Every structure is written in C-alpha cells, then in structure tokens.
C-alpha cells in the first residue's frame, strides 16, 4: 500500500500565562495509506482537532507546531513549506471538512461560487469550466436537483445538504487525503447515515485516504479501517478496527466502551470513567491516565511508551508488558 501521509512526533504548543508553553498535542505519530480510513478517536480536549489543523498548518496563533515534528505528504515535507508552496497543498493534496457546516460556509456567496472557488484556486480552468465542475461535484455528493441548487445560498439548504456542499468544496481540487473533523456530529442520525455513505462512496471511487476525527465509536466501527485513540495529547492505543473492538486494551479505551449506551444487547448500568479530562495546561506526570485509571499501579508513575499488545496493536500502557501477545 502506498503511504500518503506520515506524521511523526507531532507536537503543538501554546503559550501559558506564566510564560511556559503547554502541549495539547504531545508526540503524536501515525500514517495513512492510499484508500484507507484512519479514525482518530477521543473526547473534547484530547487534541484531535488540533492535530488535524496542524496537518494543514492551520494551528491558530499563538499556537505553533514545535520543532522536532514531522509531517510528510508523500515526498513533501509539509512543515518546511512556505507561502505559495504551502497554499498549493491545502485543498489540492489535503482537503478538509469541518464539523459545523453552517459556520464553515460563507453566507453571502452562493454554493456554486464557493465550490468553483475551490476549483479555481488549484486548477487552471476558466470560470465556466469551474462552474461545470461544481455542478458535477454537487451531483457526486448526492444533492438532488444540482442544477437548481448551484445558485442557492447556504441558509437555503438543510444541514445535511450544507455538509454535502462542504464535502464538494473539499474535493474540488481532487485531494489525495480528506481530513474530516467530526463531519456528522452536528447532524441528525438519519442524515449522518447519508453523509457517511457519501463519504465512503467518494473514497472508494477516488482512492482517497481519509482521516476521520470523531468521538463516536459507532461511526468508527462502521467506517474505519484503523483506529487511534487519543487522550491528553497522546495516542494511547492504535489497532485495526476489528482488533480494537475485539480486544480494547488500554484502560481508557475500555472505559470508553463501558460508558457508551448500546442499541442492542443487555441494558446495564453504564460504568463511566471517574474524574474529568485533564486540562492541557496541567497534564498529570507519568501516565496521564493514571489519576482516573482503575488499573493504575506503581509503574504508572513513569510515562509509558507505545507497547505491543497484539497483531498491529499497540497501547501506551505498562500493562502491555504483562502480555506481549494476545491476552
């Protein structure tokens, strides 16, 4: 499989009031192959959104990507690009869709204009050609009556349709990678199903790689090939989807599974994870999950490395040392 994205030791830092810098993203590494979907799973504050922004060098100031991080798009070193070269990868090689389609679309421009803009920014086409392309894209994302919708304004469309428009804009320049940051969180569940279906179809048709950022384990189960679970700025478990769901190993992952209400199976009292997510300005020392971990032990005082627990399955926990292979 061709690797299209390689991220190593990504660190994003922000200045704290006392002058030091803190790291909401602290040493994240992963890679993406052509045509595969990697899900980045975690709750608010774990750093997953910042990670995706960093890929496009969109980290809002005063935050910045720290030296020592590596982001490689094929052969291109994203972090060394400047100006025009950087602009050329945004949209052209990596496309991004955001969570809230209402605020991500410009309310004073028509939908067709916004898609065409995405096309013209990267492809040498005339206005007329761009418009045709926009029409084709609207069709591709499954908008009914695309010709009629080309000149509609965002507020005239429903949430599901707006999200499809966002997808069309993101795909306008034919990127190799699509980063989808909680693309369906703001949508109703039936609309969510539609959008995820569209994304899947497009991915297969174009051979795109998708980085899917979400907190919803159900979406992950249905749509991702591989999963990386994030907590407190770090990846704490990564595995192919089937493997992760069959053998969730990190106590945080296990906690997440135990706290999700199920649509089938027995109804039992949920077991939430005690405590609260730590603030990036004050991550615990040693293993960051230790204060909330029911299985913490003395070695947890040392920050754990990513250790193997199964086939292609690693977790950031000293408990892995008890089991080199499957439990």
């Amino acid at each position, binding site marked *: 499989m061709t690797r299209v994205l390689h991220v190593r030791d990504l660190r994003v830092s922000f200045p704290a009031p006392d002058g030091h810098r803190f790291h909401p993203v602290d040493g994240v590494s992963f890679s993406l192959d052509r045509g595969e979907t990697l899900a980045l799973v975690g709750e608010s504050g774990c750093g997953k959104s910042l990670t995706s922004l960093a890929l496009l060098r969109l980290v809002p100031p005063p935050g910045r990507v720290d030296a020592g991080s590596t982001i490689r798009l094929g052969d291109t070193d994203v972090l060394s690009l400047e100006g025009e070269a950087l602009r050329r990868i945004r949209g052209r090689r990596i496309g991004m869709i955001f969570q809230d389609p209402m605020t991500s679309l410009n309310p004073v421009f028509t939908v067709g204009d916004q898609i065409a803009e995405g096309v013209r920014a990267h492809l040498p086409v005339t206005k007329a050609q761009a418009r045709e392309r926009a029409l084709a894209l609207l069709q591709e994302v499954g908008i009914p009556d695309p010709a009629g919708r080309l000149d509609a304004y965002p507020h005239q469309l*429903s949430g599901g349709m707006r999200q499809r428009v966002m997808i069309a804009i993101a795909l306008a320049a034919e990127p190799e990678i699509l980063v989808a940051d909680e693309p369906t969180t703001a949508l109703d*569940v*039936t609309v969510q199903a539609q959008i995820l279906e569209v994304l899947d179809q497009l991915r297969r048709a174009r051979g795109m790689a998708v980085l899917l950022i979400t907190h919803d*384990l159900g979406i992950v*189960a249905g749509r991702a090939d591989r999963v990386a679970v994030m907590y407190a700025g770090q990846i704490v478990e990564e595995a192919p989807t089937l493997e992760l769901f069959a053998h969730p190993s990190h106590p945080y992952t296990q906690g*997440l599974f135990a706290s999700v*209400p199920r649509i089938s199976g027995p109804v039992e009292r949920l077991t939430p994870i005690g405590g609260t997510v730590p603030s990036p300005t004050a991550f615990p020392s040693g293993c960051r999950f230790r204060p909330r971990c029911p299985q913490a032990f003395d070695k947890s005082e040392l920050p754990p490395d990513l250790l193997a627990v199964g086939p292609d399955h690693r977790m950031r926990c000293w408990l892995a040392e008890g089991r080199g292979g499957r439990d």
Partner: protein
Amino acid sequence: MTSVSPPLLEVRDLVKHYAAGGLFAGGPPVRAVEGVSFTVGRGETVALVGESGCGKSSVGRTILRLQEPTSGRAVFDGTDVFALDRAALRRLRRRMQIIFQDPYSSLNPRMTVGAAVAEGIEIHGLAKGAEVARRVAALLAEVGLDPGYARRYPHEFSGGQRQRVGIARALAVEPSFIVCDEPVSALDVSVQAQVLNLLADLQRERGLSYLFIAHDLAVVRQIARRVEVMYLGRIVESGPTEALLASPRHPYTVALLSAVPEPDPTRRRSRIVLRGDLPSPSDPPSGCPFHTRCFHPGRNERCRTELPLLRPVGATLAACHYAESTPAAAPATAASA
C-alpha cells in the same frame, strides 16, 4: 401502562404553531406540534425521540407553559396546566421543572453557581438565611459537585459540571416531574454516562418522573421505559422501549433505528438510508407526514391522502396504514471473517 394509579401527566391533542417571522413574516405558520398525546406515570421515564424539526423540544416547553400552546390539554396531577392564572402557575412550577441541553447557555454567566441553585429556593420562599446555603451545599453534593464550588462562576466549570449545576437548580424546588430536554447531547461520552447515571439515581431516590427528550435511541434505551417517536410534529410510534426497538412497526422508526451507528464492527446491519430531506414544518406533506420519504413497499395513494392514526400493532401503537407489513431492517448478522 401497567400501574393502576392515574398518570402524573396527561397530554392530549397538543398543538403548537409558531407564526412565521422575520423574512418570512406573513407566510404560513410553522406547525411544530400537530396533535400530540401521551402520558407519563409516577416515577416513570417516558422518552420523546426524534430528529431536529420534529417538535419534541416544543412539546417539552409548551407543557411547562414556557410557551403558550395553540390548542390542546395538559393535565398535571389533576390540574389543567393551561388554565392556570399567573399565581397558580408560579406555584405549579415547583412541581414541574426542566433541564436544558446546552450547558453553556443555560446558566447565567454573571451569577455564581450557588446563587443559581438558590434562586428557586428564594423565589418560592422555601428557606431563609443560613438554611439556604445549607440546602445549596446539600444539593451540590447530591449531584456530585464539591459544595465549596458554590462561590464560583459557570465559566470555571466544564460542560458536564455545568449540567450538574442545572440539575441541582431544578431539584432545589423539590419537583416531582422534570422535562429533560436533550440533557446529554452536548456532552462527551464519558461525561454523558455520568450524567445519565446521576439522573437514574435521582429518579430512584426521589421518585421523580421524567419526560426525556432526545434524538439518540441508544441513550433513550438506557433510561426510558416507554418511547414516543416523533416526526414532523406528530407521534408516529409509541410503546415500551424494548418492544419498540426489537420490532418497530412504523417505517420511520425502522429507519431511525437502522441509522444508529453501533459500536460493533461485526454486526453489519443493512442500513436504510432515507432519501430526500425533511419537509418543512410550515409546509408539511398531505396525508401521512412521512410518505415523501417512505420506503415501505406497500406505500400507495392512500398514504398521500389519508392521515394515519396511532393504532395498536403488535406491542406498540403505530401511525401507519400498513404497519402490519413494515419490513424490519435486515436482521443483524455476524460477518464471517
């Protein structure tokens, strides 16, 4: 309903229309709620489920008379809620409370958490002086917060903690019934579980009844004994939770159920992806509101012209002419490797 005692809340033919405003002023009204009827028993949790635009939040607010109904009746413990004068309504507010969805806008940013919780106590004169502070501390502890937090402001708390404050605030007046308007939708997964457990515990300890408004069927299953499924302002299916989820009879319920992403990659259910978009509530379809997107093979002219009424089908009530033959989603199968 198997209990013999009369229901705590009975809602009959509730209708709520909003006049079209803003750019659309003078246009057709938004028919948010179009004749909804249900009951909530003592100590029971009934869930009102549906997607955006179905009118569930409007139902919740109208029952409490935070908005005036267009027509219909709501009888709470023998009292006609819509017929009360201001003073009597104020007294009733002690017994019927509400918890809101958005933890960020449901607390006054310029009021300490303690003052927010104490407000109900002050309004109804339930305690004076030092007793108020004592009660506030006890309530905060009951919802799992450190009583010392009373002096702090909402912005110092996380979403989950704010939601707990909202619950404490509602409990302060000692209600017997609480409308929970999507109380966990805006929370993270693990926090959601904490709050759900809290609500369940409080129900047990205080004998509360809940009208639980939500869009997430999995959450509803966790906490509600009966479910009312809403679509475009009407109840399309109603019944005990397990029965409704095990064999849904209305096509919308089937679609809703199949769309819920399940955290189990080995269960590959066939997903029913609905065509089209939700019709506008100011211009609902004729006949059955769902017919424009319905996938039932038996769908025909009758669906377009005649509004189906809720009738018993199997273990639930469903508003569909052909509910007996509604195709279920393909049964869940374990994928082979």
